[in-house]
C-alpha cells in the first residue's frame, strides 16, 4: 500500500520513499507541529487506524504465504525423500535376479553373473567332450596295439605248426632208423611213433591257434574300422557342437557386456540423480530462513503499529534510534541485519561451511 493513497487533509509532510517508518515519522511530525489545528488529531487517529487495519491485512497475507510455502516445501521434501529411497532401492545391492525380483541395476549385475556362470559351464562341457575324445583315442590306440599283437600271435602259431611238421618228419626218420636196427630198435620205434603222434597233435593245435588268432585279428580290425568311422563322425559332431557353443558363448558374452554396461550406466545415472536431489533438498533450507524473516516482519509490523498508536496518545514521535531498534528487534539472520544497515540493498543468504567448535 502506498502512503499517498491514504493521505489526509491537514498533513503537510508526505513520505517520499514510501517506507512505513518514514510514513509514521511524517505523521508524528505533522501531529507534533500542528496539535493546535482542528482536525489534526482525528486525521492522525484515522491514519493510524487505517495503518493498523493495513498491518493486520499484511500480517494475514504473510501468514497465508508462509503456511502455503511451508506446506509446499514439506510436500516437495517428502517427495524428494521418496525419490531418494527409490533410487537407493535401484542402486544399492539387492538379492539376485534369479529370485524373480524386479530388474534393477543390482539385478542386472546378478544376471550378468548368472550368464557368466552359464558361459563357464558351456566351456566346461566342451572340455568334457574333448576329454572324452582323448580318452577314446587312448583306448583305440591300445586296441591297435592289441591288433598288432594278434598278428605276432598268428606268426607264433605258424611257427608252432612248422616245428610240429619238422618234428613229425624227424620222428618218421627215427622210425625208419629203428626198423633198420631190428629187435634192438623196437623200443626206439615206440618212442618215435609217440613223438610223431605228439607232433601231429602239436601241429593241429598250432593250426587251431592260428585260426583263432586270425579270427580274433579279423574281429579286431573290423572293430577298429568301425571305431575309426565313429571317431570321424564324433569328431564332426563335436566340432559342430563346439562351433554352436562358441556362437552361444559369443552371444552370451555380448549380452553380458551389454547388461554390465547398462547396469553401470544405471548406477552412474542413479548416483547423479541422487546427488542432484540431495542438493535440491539442501537448497530447500531457504524456507527456514524465509520463515524466520517473515515471522520477524510480522512481529515488527505489529510492534510498529502499536508504537505509533502509543505515540499518537503521547503526542510525541519515537526518536530514530528507538524506531530502528523497534524495527530490528528479533532479527535472526545476518541478511536482515545487513539490509537494515544498508537501506534497501538485499543481502544473500550466507554460504559459509565453517563450523564453530567450543
Amino acid at each position, binding site marked *: 500500500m502506498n502512503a499517498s493513497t491514504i493521505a489526509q487533509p491537514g498533513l503537510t509532510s508526505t513520505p517520499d520513499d514510501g517506507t512505513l517508518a518514514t510514513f509514521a515519522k511524517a505523521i508524528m511530525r505533522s501531529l507534533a507541529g500542528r496539535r493546535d489545528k482542528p482536525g489534526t488529531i482525528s486525521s492522525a487517529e484515522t491514519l493510524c487506524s487505517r495503518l493498523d487495519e493495513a498491518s493486520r491485512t499484511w500480517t494475514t497475507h504473510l501468514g497465508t504465504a508462509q503456511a502455503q510455502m511451508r506446506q509446499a516445501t514439506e510436500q516437495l521434501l517428502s517427495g524428494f*525423500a521418496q525419490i531418494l529411497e527409490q533410487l537407493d532401492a535401484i542402486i544399492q545391492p539387492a538379492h539376485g535376479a534369479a529370485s524373480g525380483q524386479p530388474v534393477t541395476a543390482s539385478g542386472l549385475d546378478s544376471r550378468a553373473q548368472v550368464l557368466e556362470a552359464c558361459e563357464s559351464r558351456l566351456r566346461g562341457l566342451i572340455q568334457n567332450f574333448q576329454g572324452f575324445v582323448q580318452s577314446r583315442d587312448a583306448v583305440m590306440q591300445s586296441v591297435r596295439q592289441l591288433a598288432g599283437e594278434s598278428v605276432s600271435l598268428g606268426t607264433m602259431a605258424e611257427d608252432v605248426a612248422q616245428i610240429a611238421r619238422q618234428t613229425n618228419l624227424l620222428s618218421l626218420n627215427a622210425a625208419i632208423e629203428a626198423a633198420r636196427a631190428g629187435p634192438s630198435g623196437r623200443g626206439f620205434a615206440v618212442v618215435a611213433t609217440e613223438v610223431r603222434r605228439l607232433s601231429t597233435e602239436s601241429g593241429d593245435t598250432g593250426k587251431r591257434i592260428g585260426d583263432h588268432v586270425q579270427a580274433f585279428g579279423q574281429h579286431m580290425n573290423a572293430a577298429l574300422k568301425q571305431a575309426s568311422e565313429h571317431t570321424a563322425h564324433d569328431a564332426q559332431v563335436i566340432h559342430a557342437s563346439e562351433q554352436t557353443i562358441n556362437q552361444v558363448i559369443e552371444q552370451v558374452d555380448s549380452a553380458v557386456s551389454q547388461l554390465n554396461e547398462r547396469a553401470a550406466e544405471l548406477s552412474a545415472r542413479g548416483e547423479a540423480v541422487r546427488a542432484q536431489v540431495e542438493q535440491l533438498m539442501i537448497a530447500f533450507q531457504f524456507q527456514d530462513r524465509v520463515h524466520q524473516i517473515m515471522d520477524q516482519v510480522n512481529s515488527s509490523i505489529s510492534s510498529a503499529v502499536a508504537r505509533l498508536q502509543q505515540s499518537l496518545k503521547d503526542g510525541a514521535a519515537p526518536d530514530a534510534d528507538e524506531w530502528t531498534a523497534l524495527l530490528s528487534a528479533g532479527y535472526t539472520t545476518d541478511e536482515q541485519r545487513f539490509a537494515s544497515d544498508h537501506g534497501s540493498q538485499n543481502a544473500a*543468504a550466507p554460504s*559459509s*561451511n565453517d*563450523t*564453530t567448535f567450543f
Partner: protein
Amino acid sequence: MAKTILIVDDSSSLRTVVRMALVRAGYDVIEAGDGKEGLAQLDKAGKVNLIVSDVNMPNMDGITFVTHVKAHPRHKFTPVVMLTTEGQDAKKEQGRAAGAKAWIVKPFNPPQLLDAVSKLILP
C-alpha cells in the same frame, strides 16, 4: 548398534533434511519440534548420543533447551550441536555458555554436519 541423535527444530522441512543426512550416515534419529518436546523426547529415550538443536523456536528456544539439558544429571554430558540461522558472535557465545559444543549456521551441507557429529558424538 546404531547411535541415536535427537534433532530439535521447529521446521519440519529442516528436520527432514537433517534426518536424511544422519540416517544415510547410519545413525538412528528421533525428532522434536521445540525445546520442550526435545526434553520430553530425552526423558522418553533415556539416552541419546548427540543432540542437534535449532536456536529460534517457539515454546522453548534452543539456548534454554541446552541449559536444561546440561542441568540434567543423565544428559549433562550429551554433546549438543547448534544448527541455526543465527550467525552473530553474541548468540554463539550464549550457546557456548549454555554448554553447546559446536555451532553451524544454516544453510548447512551434510558433510559439514556429519563431520561435527563424528567428532563429538558419544561412544
